[in-house]
Structure formats: C-alpha cells, structure tokens
C-alpha cells in the first residue's frame, strides 16, 4: 500500500481519491478543491449511495461510479478484488433469466440480459453493488438467510470485508483466503 493512502484522512470528491489535506483548511492537495469529507463518513455515504446514481451525481456534480468501481480505479488495495468477493461466482444473465422475470431482490429491478450477477451459495442472484453493502455488515443471504459461514466465522468475514474497503493501513490479511461458500 502506498504511503499516501496510509496517511490519507479525507476523500476528495473531485479527484475521487483519498487525500491528506495539508492544513486545517481542508483543501485537496491535488486540485485545491474543498469538496472533502472524512474518509470514514465518505465510505458510509458511498455505500448507501452506491446504487443511487441520482444521489451520487448530487454529491459529485457528475455521473459517479459505484463504490467498488471507485476503489478499484483509485486505490491500490482495490486493484485486486478481494478473495471473499471473488469466491462468489458471477453468472451472465441469459435470455431464460430475463424471460422468467428474474429480479435483483435488493433493488427489485429486472436483470438485464448479458449483464453479470453475483450468485450466492444458495443460488440466489444479486447485482454486485446491491449485495455488497449487505455482506459488509451481515453474513447471510437476504432472501433465504443462509449463513455464508458458521456464526463464529462471521465476524472474520466481516472484518476481512471491512479491511478490504478500509483505505488506511493494516490490511495485512489481504491475501488471506476467505471462501464464502461454506460447503467445504
């Protein structure tokens, strides 16, 4: 992890990256913009906004990427997707899915053909952006409540997911394998 990320305290909404303002004036050192927010708050905002494009444009003044997309683009620790997310298979939505009127249970929008969806071990499908904020805090499928791991491991997965999205240091367990599929 780069030292600049380690030292960052704020999120710059214009640069879309974590920054450390040089003074108490809270101005981005890269673009001199003052549209900054403390990282922990910005993370919360982006999670709850990740599917609401309208609200996101309000925050940024421009069309915004989802939380995961932002981090993948801007933060070194997100260049490689975390194993916990990787372990969930992605499937491509087919004509049959569309024909059956399959919806993402979280946003309740129909899945579109040829787009990707995340498949839980119980086979329930979600948009990545829809299931991710839930899995950060919970350890279960929203539809059938299947626990992804036994309860004792739940906090471990949660910690792993939080550290995955936490822009400060301490992500030494980045490469730890967390298999969301509990059938092992």
């Amino acid at each position, binding site marked *: 992890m780069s030292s600049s990320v380690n030292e960052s305290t704020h999120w710059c909404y214009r640069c879309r990256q974590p920054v450390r303002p040089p003074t108490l004036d809270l101005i981005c050192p890269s673009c001199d913009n003052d549209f900054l927010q403390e990282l922990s708050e910005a993370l919360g*905002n982006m999670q*709850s*906004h990740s*599917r*609401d494009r*309208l*609200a996101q444009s309000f925050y940024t003044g421009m069309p915004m990427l989802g939380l995961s997309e932002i981090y993948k683009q801007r933060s070194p620790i997100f260049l490689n997707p975390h194993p916990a997310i990787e372990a969930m298979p992605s499937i491509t939505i087919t004509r049959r899915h569309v024909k059956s009127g399959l919806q993402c*249970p*979280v*946003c*309740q*929008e129909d899945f579109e053909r040829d787009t990707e969806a995340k498949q839980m071990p119980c086979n329930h499908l979600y948009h990545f952006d*829809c299931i991710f*904020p*839930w899995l950060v*805090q919970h350890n*279960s499928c*929203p*539809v059938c*409540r299947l626990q992804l791991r036994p309860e004792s491991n739940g906090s471990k997965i949660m910690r792993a997911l939080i550290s995955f999205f936490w822009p400060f240091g301490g992500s030494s367990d980045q490469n730890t394998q967390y298999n969301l599929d509990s059938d092992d």
Partner: protein
Amino acid sequence: MVDFARVQKELQECNRDFEVSGIKVVPKSDASLAHLLGTITGPLGTPYEGGTFKIDITLPDGYPFEPPKMRFATKVWHPNISSQSGAICLDILKDQWSPALTLKTALLSVQALLSAPEPDDPQDAVVAQQYLRDYPTFMGTARYWTEAFARTSSLGVEEKVQKLVEMGFPDALVRSTLESVEGDENMALEKLCSG
C-alpha cells in the same frame, strides 16, 4: 440516502392490490418519500376486525439495508404494541430485517402480529399482563379500542361525506367540517350538531 427508486417501485406494487391485501402505503407529503403512511386492516376473527390501522413509516438513510421505522399512529390494544406510543415489537423491524423484505411484507408481518400476539415478549407490559391473566377482559378492551379509534378512519372521505349528507347536513358544510377535524367522522358530527 434512501434508495428512492426502489421505494417508488414498492409503493406502486403495494397499492396495486389494496382491495385484496388491505395494505396501502402513501407518502405523507409530496416533498419526500422518506415519511410514509401505511394502512392495514384488522385481521378477521380477531378483536381488531373491522378496524383500519394507520402506521407511521420513516425510512432511515440506509434503507433498504436498514429496516423501516414503523409505529402505530392509530391507538391499539395489543401486547406487542405500545398503547402509549404505538411502538411495535417485531423482530423483522429490528435485527431480523433483510433488504429482500419490503414495506408491504413488513406491513403484512405487522398485520400477522395482530392475529398472533406474543405476550411473552411484550412491548406493553400492562397489556401483556392482562392478556395472560384475564384474557376475556383483554379481548373486550382490544375490541373496544378498535371500535373507538380504528373505526372512524375505515371509511373513505366520500363515504363519510355521503353518510353525513344523508343525515341532512349540506354537502359543502359537511366537507369543510370534516376537513377541519382531519376526517374524524364522530367529531365532525358533533361539530355539525352543535353548529
């Protein structure tokens, strides 16, 4: 920030089969979808039968990842609902919430709670005690509260107007009086008689 696209969708779907489900959700004002008013009908065969219950709904910023906040706006006598504040003790409105649930399914659960009180996990200790120790009195009180508080709002505005007009009051006066007492049929009648 609440996912208003989903809320909008939920409202449309929920209100589509009001006649069947007896469940309705409408925004409290045009300004925001974060404050809603739900309506459920009292289940048949319970002391709540014949009543229409209003439920205040507030959507937290994290909705649908956090549960909607629900509270009975209509007074109701039930072990799991505060007779004072209308607070509801129901697991899916707390730690058992899931983003796959909706306002409609949550209200259906509230309606089911009216059919199946759980006095061992009470919200209102006085009501729960009465339920456990003196069931006939509990039934009587619950039925009385339904008659007294949940009946008046069971009629639509037009039905109330029609009822009062049939008693011989002029249409315009009935409408303005009803409006002044926020649709309370009994208070309107009182006012019309005294005026």
